[in-house]
C-alpha cells in the first residue's frame, strides 16, 4: 500500500473561522482541477454536496464511531457504583444512561458487579461514495446530530477517498475541511500535502487564521493562504501578507466580495458554473493557476 500512496497528493481547505468561504472555493476548484477525487470532511455540517451535485450514490456505509452503555433495569441492583465512577454524569438516579452525555468509555460496563450494563456499538453517521454529474468520484459523510467521533468519521472519509484514488489511478484528493482547530480539523489535516487556508480580512478572521496556521505547522503541513472578501478591509489584507511573509506561508491572493456567490448557491451551482466571468470567478481562476504551480513543486 505504501508505495502506491506516494503519488497521491492531498490538499485540504481549512479556515479556522467558519463561514469564510471554504466550500465556495472548494466548489470552484472542483470545476478547475483535473484528475482528482473530491472529499468533504466537514462531517457535522457538510455542504459541498449542495453545489457539487452527487448524481448517483454508489455506496452508502453505516458509521459506528464507538459503543454506548445502557442498563438492564431488571438486573440492576441499584448499588450506585456506575454512577460513582462515571466521569461524564451520564447515568441518572433512576439508572438510565443519557446517550448524549455517555462518551462510551465502558467503565460502567466493565465494573458493574451485577453485569447489568450492556455496551453496544451505536450508529453515529453515514458515509457516501458518489459520482458527480461530471463523472468524478465524491466522498462525503453525515454525522448524526449531536454525535461524537467526528474525527474518526473524517478519517473514514479520507481512507475511502484514498482507496478510490488508488482504484481510479487519480493523483489528487481535494478535501473540503471543517472550521475550528479541534478533533475533526486535526483529523482532516494530518498527513496532507498542503493546507489551503481561506480567511477574511477581519480581526476574527486574522485571529483564527493564526491559530489554524499554528496547528498546521504543529503537524508540519505546508500552508498557503487565500483571502476572501479581500476588498472589505484592505489594511488587514496588507497585515496578512506581511504575516505570511514573516512566517514562511505562501500568500496566493484575494477573492473580492461578490453577491453573486450567494445567488450561485441558491441556484445549487458553483460560482464558476453560475457566472464564470464575474470578478470572483476571475480571481479564483488566478488562484487555481498559482495552486497548480505550488502542487507541482510538492
Amino acid at each position: 500500500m505504501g508505495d502506491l500512496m506516494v503519488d497521491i497528493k492531498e490538499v485540504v481547505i481549512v479556515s479556522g473561522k467558519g463561514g469564510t468561504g471554504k466550500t465556495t472555493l472548494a466548489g470552484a476548484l472542483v470545476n478547475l482541477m483535473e484528475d482528482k477525487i473530491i472529499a468533504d470532511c466537514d462531517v457535522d455540517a457538510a455542504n459541498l454536496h449542495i453545489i457539487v451535485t452527487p448524481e448517483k450514490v454508489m455506496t452508502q456505509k453505516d458509521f459506528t464511531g464507538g459503543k454506548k452503555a445502557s442498563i438492564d433495569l431488571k438486573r440492576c441492583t441499584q448499588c450506585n457504583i456506575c454512577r460513582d465512577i462515571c466521569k461524564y454524569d451520564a447515568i441518572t438516579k433512576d439508572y438510565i444512561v443519557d446517550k448524549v452525555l455517555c462518551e462510551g468509555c465502558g467503565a460502567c460496563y466493565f465494573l458493574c458487579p451485577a453485569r447489568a450494563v450492556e455496551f453496544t456499538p451505536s450508529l453515529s453517521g453515514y458515509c457516501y461514495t458518489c459520482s458527480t454529474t461530471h463523472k468524478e468520484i465524491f466522498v462525503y459523510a453525515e454525522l448524526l446530530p449531536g454525535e461524537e467521533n467526528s474525527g474518526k468519521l473524517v478519517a473514514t472519509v479520507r481512507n475511502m477517498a484514498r482507496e478510490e484514488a488508488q482504484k481510479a489511478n487519480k493523483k489528487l484528493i481535494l478535501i473540503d475541511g471543517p472550521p475550528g482547530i479541534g478533533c475533526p480539523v486535526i483529523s482532516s489535516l494530518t498527513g496532507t500535502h498542503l493546507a489551503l487556508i481561506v480567511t477574511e480580512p477581519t480581526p476574527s478572521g486574522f485571529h483564527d487564521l493564526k491559530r489554524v496556521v499554528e496547528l498546521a505547522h504543529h503537524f508540519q503541513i505546508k500552508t498557503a493562504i487565500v483571502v476572501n472578501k479581500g476588498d472589505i478591509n484592505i489594511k488587514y489584507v496588507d497585515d496578512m501578507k506581511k504575516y505570511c511573509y514573516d512566517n514562511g506561508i505562501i500568500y496566493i491572493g484575494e477573492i473580492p466580495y461578490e453577491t453573486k456567490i450567494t445567488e450561485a448557491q441558491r441556484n445549487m451551482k458553483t460560482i464558476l458554473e453560475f457566472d464564470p466571468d464575474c470578478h470572483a470567478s476571475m480571481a479564483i481562476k488566478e488562484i487555481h493557476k498559482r495552486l497548480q504551480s505550488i502542487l507541482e513543486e510538492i
Partner: protein
Amino acid sequence: MRIVFASGKGGTGKTTIAVNFAFFLAYSQQKVQYLDCDVEEPNGHIFLKPKIDERLPVKVMIPVINQEVCTYCGECSRHCQFNALVTLPNNVLLFPELCHGCGLCLRICPACAITEGEREIGYIEKGMALMGIEFVSGLLNIGEPMAGPVIQQVKHHYNNDCVQIIDAPPGTSCPVVKTIIDADCVVMVTEPTPFALHDLKIAVSVAQTLGKQIGILINRENGEFKPLKEYLLENNLPVLATIPEDREIARVYSEGSLLMERLPLYKYNFIELSENIKKLFGQRTYG
C-alpha cells in the same frame, strides 16, 4: 436566564449578534455575563475588549503508570475504548491526546500500577468588558483535539445573577451539545442560503433532542428565500429578529467594532430580539 447563540454553519453571525446583544442588554441596565464557548476559535474578546484579570488553566485527568509496579499484562490497553494506551513487552505508552480521562484503566489495573495525573489542555480567561459586562472565555491549546472539557470549565464560572449570553461553536456535534445542554433558550443565527439552511436543520434537531426553546434570527436578510421560510413555518419556529444584508455591517465588523456603537439604528433590531426572547418565555423581564 441563559441564552445560547448557535447556528450549525460557521460565519452566519453568532458572535456579532451575541456581543451586540450583550452590549445592548448592559446598556439597558441589565446585569450581563458573556461566555465564549467557541473555545477552538473564540472571538468575543475582539469586540467586547475585556480587561482580563484572571487566567485559569483547564486540566484533564490522565493516567500515570508506575513502570516499576507494572507487569505489562495489557489489561489497561485492552479495556481502553479510545486506544490511548498501548502495552509493549516492557513498556506502556500513553497517547494523552486520545485519553478521555474516564479513569477505567486506574480501576482495572490488577497490579494497581496506575495513578491519577493531570494535563493542561487549555485555559479560561475572566475579566470585565465594555459596559460592565462580565466576560468569560475558554481557549483550547493548539494541537489539542477535545474542546469538551474546556467548554465545561467555562460553565463553572456562571454567574446566575446575570443574564447569560453564550456564544456557541459552529457545527452540530459534541462541542455544540456541551454548550447548549443547560441553556434556557437557543437562538439559531442563520442566513437565507442553502448552506446555512442545511446546517440549521441539523442544529435545530440537536436542540430539539435536548428539549430546548428555540428561536431564529435571520442575518444578512436579502429578499425572500422560500426554502427557509417554508422550513420555519412547517416546524413552527419563531423568527425573533431579522438583520438585513448590509456592507456597512461587514465593514464595522472588520474593524472589530460594535454595531451598537457605530450603526446605532440597529438598536431597534436588538430591542425586537430582546422583546421576542422574553415573549418566548411569556415573561416581561429577564428575572
